[in-house]
């Protein structure tokens, strides 16, 4: 499978984009709506004209039309051909490449087995559920054994549970096929769960390319930090394994209990929206519960950001505006906070 190199790509919002995707890598392109994510994979697929150069394994493919680039493309809307049944949809790319009928049949059967969709073989797309459509579309995309797999928010139309399940399956499949993959999403957690590396793109520019944990713990710029939800990042000076996948870490005087199944934790991160704020002491046993003083309050769209000083650690919490209005919060006021245990992410690496 090839490595992909984008050199000085200019198209629509994308300006001078340079990006390298390694052989067999699962790269997630992360960005908000209109950031240029889809444009970027359309450029790789050859579906749009562009300035700059795209190289597969060091060889420019700019002059190759889309039907010769050997890419598999999973569209956001999945776009199964409505007039063809499942078998014909999967076989489409194979007959387009003039495979013999017996070879087509064998490959289609192989994919029906691989994707567990044999029972859907004679159905038409309108007779399929969202998850089933997703599997068929994926089978169709990988049927001709593409050199590169491009996925444009394929899970965005599914319910959270199905999306979560298919996410895991998709990642496993990519590993098994060993195909170089570019996955576009605006969902940070989806990106973190799937990526070997993430490319954060903003306003047509690549802001940062790194492993998910590094993006989360070492955002290159304010924009990246803002996009990923401006996480609170705390350095850990103390670490104790409590067993059963739970560790206790100390961060500047704060003792946190965190689910973690690995080595020494050097940093933890928690998104502001995952910090629960209360005027009164929450009842019951409070794991990761602290008391602090509000030092600043700032509205941000339909949320309000609240900076709280806890034992000389500055934490930012975020609450919905309508909830904030019901609370009686002000600068200087004492509040109680809980850092939601399962939302705390750990970082084992070093800063380098």
């Amino acid at each position, binding site marked *: 499978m090839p490595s992909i190199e984008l050199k000085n790509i200019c198209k629509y919002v994308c300006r001078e984009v340079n990006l390298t995707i390694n052989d067999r890598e699962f790269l997630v392109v992360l960005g908000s709506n209109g950031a240029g994510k889809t444009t970027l994979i359309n450029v790789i*697929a050859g*579906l749009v004209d562009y300035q700059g150069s795209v190289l597969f394994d060091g060889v420019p493919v700019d002059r190759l039309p889309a*039907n010769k680039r050997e890419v598999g493309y999973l*569209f956001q809307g999945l776009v199964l051909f409505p007039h063809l049944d499942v078998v014909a949809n999967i076989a*489409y790319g194979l007959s387009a*490449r003039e495979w013999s009928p017996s070879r087509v049949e064998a490959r289609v059967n192989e994919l029906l087995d691989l994707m567990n969709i044999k029972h859907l073989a004679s159905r038409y797309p309108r007779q399929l559920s969202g998850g089933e459509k997703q599997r068929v579309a994926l089978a169709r995309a990988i049927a001709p054994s593409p050199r590169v797999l491009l996925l444009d928010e394929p899970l965005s139309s599914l319910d959270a549970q199905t999306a979560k399940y298919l996410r895991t399956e998709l990642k496993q499949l990519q590993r098994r096929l060993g195909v170089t993959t570019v996955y576009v999403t605006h969902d940070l957690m989806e990106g973190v769960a799937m990526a070997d590396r993430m490319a954060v793109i903003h306003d047509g520019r690549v802001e940062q390319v790194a492993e998910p944990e590094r993006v989360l713990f070492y955002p290159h710029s304010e924009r990246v930090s803002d996009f990923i939800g401006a996480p609170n990042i705390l350095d850990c000076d103390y670490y104790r394994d409590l067993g059963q996948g739970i560790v206790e870490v100390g961060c500047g005087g704060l003792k946190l209990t965190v689910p973690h199944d690995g080595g020494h934790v050097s940093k933890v991160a928690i998104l502001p929206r995952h910090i629960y704020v209360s005027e009164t002491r929450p009842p019951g046993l409070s794991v990761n519960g602290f008391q602090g003083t509000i030092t600043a309050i700032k509205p941000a769209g339909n949320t309000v950001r609240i900076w709280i000083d806890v034992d000389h650690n500055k934490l930012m919490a975020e609450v919905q505006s309508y909830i904030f209005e019901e609370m009686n919060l002000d600068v200087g006021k004492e509040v109680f906070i809980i850092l939601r245990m399962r939302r705390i992410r750990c970082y084992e690496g070093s800063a380098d």
Partner: protein
Amino acid sequence: MPVAVFLALWELVARLGILPGHFFLPPFSTVVVEFYQLSASGVLGENFLSSLVRVLIGFCAGSVAGIAVGTVMGWKKVINKALNPVISLFYPIPTLGWIPLLMLWIGINEMLPITLIFICSFFPVLYNTVTGIKNVDSDYIKAARTLGASDSKILTTIVMPLALPNIFTGLRLEAGMAWRVIIAAEMVAIPTGIGALLMKAENLIRIDIIIVCLIVLAVMCLVSEKFFEYLENRLTARWR
């Protein structure tokens, strides 16, 4: 059932002489008898066959040409830009408006009604084909392209099948319209066919024959439209 009630009322009104006599509205039974006599003598069959052949040739030629030109126009923007202004100019002309010109150009012969049917079918089928092809979601085309399909394969295996519902709308409407046009053409310019029989009956003040001709016309319009409706369902109902 409503048709049976209508026919019974017709029979009753004519028999009771509520309208001014047998002369203006013969009973339905008389029309049926006349229908039998015209069929048995071969007059109806001969005229019907003349009209049918003209409709079939004109409609098939017009539709095939409409689909062919419409496909090229819908698929290639440049050709659409070049042809659309010219076609837009001709399209609004009522088909029967061509008769005087065609009589001079072609003369009064078989080609006249066939050409009229051709014109009648060509433009609407063309526009429906263009619309059908343009309405195909571009994502389907992109998906087919990334799957390795050439332009011609995309056109024949994705775009045309997805444009079928629109194309059939044009065919269905124009199949009925072709019969209306052929009758008018035969009434005005051609001495054979159902339209000509209609005119002869009018000269002889044979209202029963006129009604027979009108019933044949109505049935043929209906049969033609239903035929394309059936064909459309056969080809597209599975996936729509």
